[in-house]
């Protein structure tokens, strides 16, 4: 089993989706329990990664490789380093919570919903451990399908517009990646990412390939100015779709940057780092202001996701500046680690925020902030979690939200104090939009009679929120285990940044 641990992790949920589908609409409860079982099993198996992966050894481990398409030299090859392990664990953890979260919420074809969710989970795990570029590309595209289905079938009233926008936007981006990959293939005659990383490329080639990759991944992250699909997709997506989208799918974009841009086109990456840094800072400041005035809770949190992902891209690309211009490898490491921790943390925090909104939506069937007010009066325990996650969202120390932002801001000061100045602005604007939301939803007296009828969270919802809370707090109080898990992998990434290809 351990020889094929990664394959098992990919195929267990994908294959598990089949019996869930077969359980059919006539026995929805069976489908629910089956899918929960599959999700829990997947999570349990993923825990073996912690045993099988040796953080101190570094490098790619748990390698599997089979020839897939011989004529093209495409391999089904998987491997994981610390970053992959962390992301896979987060995926399987969130996987359980979205299944549990959808339990009786999804009444329409629950078996199909659960099956789509499980397939999505398996494909996402695949993205995080594919070491063949074409396999990565195939999975990268394949995750669109279950998400397309989730939003398209169980989505809100404008779901058609949202799904099309989502699909075309992201598909448009990945076409450029495909072209870049084909170009690389005709030079290297392989899709093996490690080989591509060693391929010498001129600056002109690197520039073209850099922008091709950038368009694909920037849309996925999403970065300003290609972020507008995200609020629309979130607004129309069912709660579980939003949770997976925010918690896991966005990380595919930044993960792609790590695996493709950093090793394959390092010189172009360094040359255009300022561009990404400026876009990241715009995401933090400008999007913060946009989030402030949203009237729809989901849109607000969606915009806040864009701002928080800005820290991930910022952390990755200040590492370029620090390595190449200040030769400050320690600070680069700090920035890069900050970006990684922020990816994991954002998974939990945004997942929790969207779950909270789902809890409210299930009771009131509205996402408009103005329809709420005084929820704490009827749902004090919900209020506890909501405040906790809101605080994590504005980066309060002791929660996971703080750790990554703290590291990135500290590192960016070393790159340039002005970058740190704009990045640290999140302290103010992040608190403003998050706590103003809390004020309007949670605090105050009840003005809407429907709020008075809202029921306190039930056992299932409590389980989901407690799980998210445990993750958010554990990471915030003691991030060292996560940092250690990823340490050698992040060091390798930073070392790669220093290698000039031209």
């Amino acid at each position, binding site marked *: 089993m351990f020889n094929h641990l990664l394959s098992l992790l990919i195929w267990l949920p994908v294959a598990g989706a089949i019996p869930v589908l077969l359980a059919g609409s006539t026995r929805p409860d069976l489908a629910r329990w089956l899918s929960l079982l599959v999700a829990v099993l997947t999570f349990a198996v993923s825990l073996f990664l912690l045993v099988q992966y040796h953080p101190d050894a570094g490098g790619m481990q748990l390698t599997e490789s089979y020839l897939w398409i011989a004529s093209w030299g495409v391999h089904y090859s998987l491997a994981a380093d610390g970053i992959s392990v962390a992301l896979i664990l987060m995926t399987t953890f969130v996987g359980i919570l979205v299944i549990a979260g959808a339990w009786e919420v999804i009444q329409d074809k629950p078996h199909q919903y659960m099956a789509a969710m499980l397939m999505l989970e398996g494909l996402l795990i695949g993205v995080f451990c594919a070491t063949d570029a074409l396999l990565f590309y195939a999975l990268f595209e394949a995750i669109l399908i279950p998400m397309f289905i989730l939003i398209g079938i169980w989505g809100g009233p404008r779901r058609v517009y949202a799904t099309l*926008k989502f699909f075309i*936007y992201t598909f448009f981006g990945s076409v450029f990646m495909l072209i870049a990959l084909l170009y690389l293939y005709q030079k290297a005659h392989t899709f093996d990412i490690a080989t591509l990383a060693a391929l010498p490329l001129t600056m002109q080639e690197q520039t073209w390939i850099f922008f091709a990759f950038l368009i694909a991944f920037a849309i996925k992250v999403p970065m300003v100015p290609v972020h507008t699909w995200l609020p629309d997709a979130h607004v129309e997506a069912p709660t579980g779709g939003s949770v997976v989208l925010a918690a896991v799918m966005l990380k595919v974009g930044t993960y792609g940057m790590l695996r493709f841009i950093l090793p394959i086109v390092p010189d172009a990456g360094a040359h255009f780092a300022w561009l990404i840094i400026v876009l990241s800072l715009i995401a933090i400041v400008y999007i913060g202001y946009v989030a402030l005035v949203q009237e729809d809770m989901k849109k607000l949190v969606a915009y806040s996701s864009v701002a928080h992902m800005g820290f991930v891209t910022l952390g990755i690309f200040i590492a370029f500046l620090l390595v190449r211009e200040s030769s400050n490898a320690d600070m680069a490491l700090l920035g890069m680690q900050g970006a990684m921790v922020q990816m994991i943390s954002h998974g939990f925090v945004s997942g929790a925020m969207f779950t909270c909104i789902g809890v409210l939506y299930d009771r009131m069937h509205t996402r408009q902030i103005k329809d709420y007010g005084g929820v704490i009066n009827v749902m004090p325990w919900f209020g506890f979690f909501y405040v906790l996650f809101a605080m994590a969202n504005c980066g309060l120390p002791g929660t996971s939200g703080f750790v990554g932002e703290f590291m990135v801001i500290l590192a960016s000061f070393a790159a340039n104090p002005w970058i740190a100045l704009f990045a640290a602005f999140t302290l103010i604007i992040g*608190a403003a939009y998050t706590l103003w939301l809390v004020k309007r939803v949670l605090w*105050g*007296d009840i003005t809407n009679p429907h709020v008075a009828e809202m029921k306190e969270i039930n056992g299932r919802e409590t389980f989901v929120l407690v799980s998210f809370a445990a993750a958010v707090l554990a990471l915030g109080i003691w991030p060292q285990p996560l940092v250690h898990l990823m340490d050698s992998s992040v060091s390798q990434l930073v070392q790669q940044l220093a290698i000039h290809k031209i």
Partner: protein
Amino acid sequence: MGLSTSILLTIALAPLVGCLLAGFLGRFLGRAGSHSVTILGVAVSCALSFYVLYQLTVGGAATYNQNIYTWFQIGHFNASVGFLVDRLTAMMLVVVSFVSLLVHVYTIGYMADDDGYKRFFSYISLFTFSMFMLVMSNNFMQLFFGWEAVGLVSYLLIGFWYKRPTAIFANLKAFLVNRVGDFGFLLGIAAVLYFLGTLDYATAFGSAPSLIGKTLQITAGTQWDAATVICICLFIGAMGKSAQVPLHVWLPDSMEGPTPISALIHAATMVTAGIFMVARMSPLFELSSTALSFVLVIGATTALFTGLIGIVQNDIKRVIAYSTLSQLGYMTVALGVSMYSGAVFHLMTHAFFKALLFLGAGSVIIAMHHEQDMRYMGGLRKYMPITWITMWIGSLALVAVPFFSGFYSKDAIIEAVGESHRWGAHYAYFCVMAGAFVTAVYTFRQMYLTFHGKERFTVVADHGHGHHVAHLDDHGHHEQGIMHELPKESPWVVTLPLVLLAIPSLLVGFFTVKPVLFGGWFGSAIHVDAANDVLGELGQHFHGAVAMALDGLWSLPFGLVVLAFVITSYVYLFNPAVADRIKNALKPFYSALYHKYWIDAVYYVVFARGGVMLGHLFWKAGDTAVIDDTMVNGSVNLIHRIAATMRRLQSGYLYHYAFAMILGLILLLGGYWLTNSGLAGQ
């Protein structure tokens, strides 16, 4: 004997355990159970804090500095959770735990009728834990943790009565204004890491002299002194937490919270965190006289101008709130003239007498059935003698009457500013001197309006409203100045803390002034450059606490206090009509004070409204108009239009296609001919 890790851990964690028990198991513990576990937790911490202080002062224990666990280790950077306990920390521990314990006990009486009783105990214990983490930290990361955690609890407690619109406005405002300070603070920490390569205090302070001569490039042609940048950034954090102008606006509004937390958080402990932090960072601040001048001017401005606002307040708690702002200004001034131990000394005495004043005000508020407007009080001294006497003790300490504890700390600050040659010291000297007069005016005015003179309320026999005491937070719908029963002294859980705070308010200065100010009691915890040592100069004229007090009787500050006493006594005891005449005579001045110099209003328009307007602009103009409508949907529409045109081409008529073919042929041939003739021409 050294300090053991387990003792320090117990100090920090005991309140946290109390908080968790009361918060999560309050349902099972009940009210008495909840207050018992939290009080027990804080009592344990308090006892151990005294033990630690004893060990460090008398027992000869060495400074404790150890990491507990590694928070992260990245490359050469280490962030840990750990404790640094020296005399500075020990003093803070004792002050925090002692005041916190008394506030816990007091809360039993004050919150007796409140539905959120257990939640309140949970919060104040959480606060105590957070404050311990802040003062015991041995590194910048944990400092920031404590810093933000106390901010969180402050947010929760200001908004404790979450149904009140004013309370939830105030707590959001408090959090955001504090975040502005934290913004600077975080940049300061980043600068420390960048220049000194560590987040650990001892290592950072040890290599602090290496900052001399280093600069930070701001723009191509501008270099700023590294130490100045670090210190000003860190101090911006202190300005938020310790409510210094221009970030002072949140503190008066924080009075929306229940009175016990006004005493604990917004007077005695949390707001002094900024003062503590700067004192802790003295090895860094000593490197930049520019930063210290900045500190000095900000502190002096706060000391005088916020005190002035206190004179026109009618809400008993708000008077004390402005007084707190002003006193924090005094502490900041002390920091600005490198008199760190003086600042911490004033912090300590202030913690006692200001907590006393707030709790006393709370006792009055209970007696008045949640009336806070002093215009409807008066003559309360005969109904509540313990509150009356203890509040006078606190007031005399506040106005710095010789022999009272506040005298020793405040007079020393005024003297030290007079001795200082730092840029801004003249301005500061004027401010703190004038501030002494202002302090006395608002304090005596408050005491007279509350306890003396005629009763300005009437007692009307109860007609069936006796049962409406249910909630503390439903006040406001009763008629002002109408009471249903005579005010009476508060129960012992309320008066006991008053008495226990009155004792140190009276005595602590007298007994500790010599070692703390002039005896170098803090040792290596505080570092002062020989050139800046104003306290050393003052120490040459110090001949004991008695002599200092006797000298104080003939000093200018005390003269101003006496003057204020005479004026306020005349105005408020003998001729109340004068107050209105003065108000009318000084209309513009009164108006400026009444509107708090219009600062809050301007902030609201510029930052709150302005921020929302900017957000709308970005959203509608940027995201919607430019990106979505033009770029995204615009390109979609373009494709639509192209497709529509293309579709029209496929008309299905044979002659259309034939025509197109002929046209194509002509073009091809024509092109061929043109190219060829061109070539032929060469």
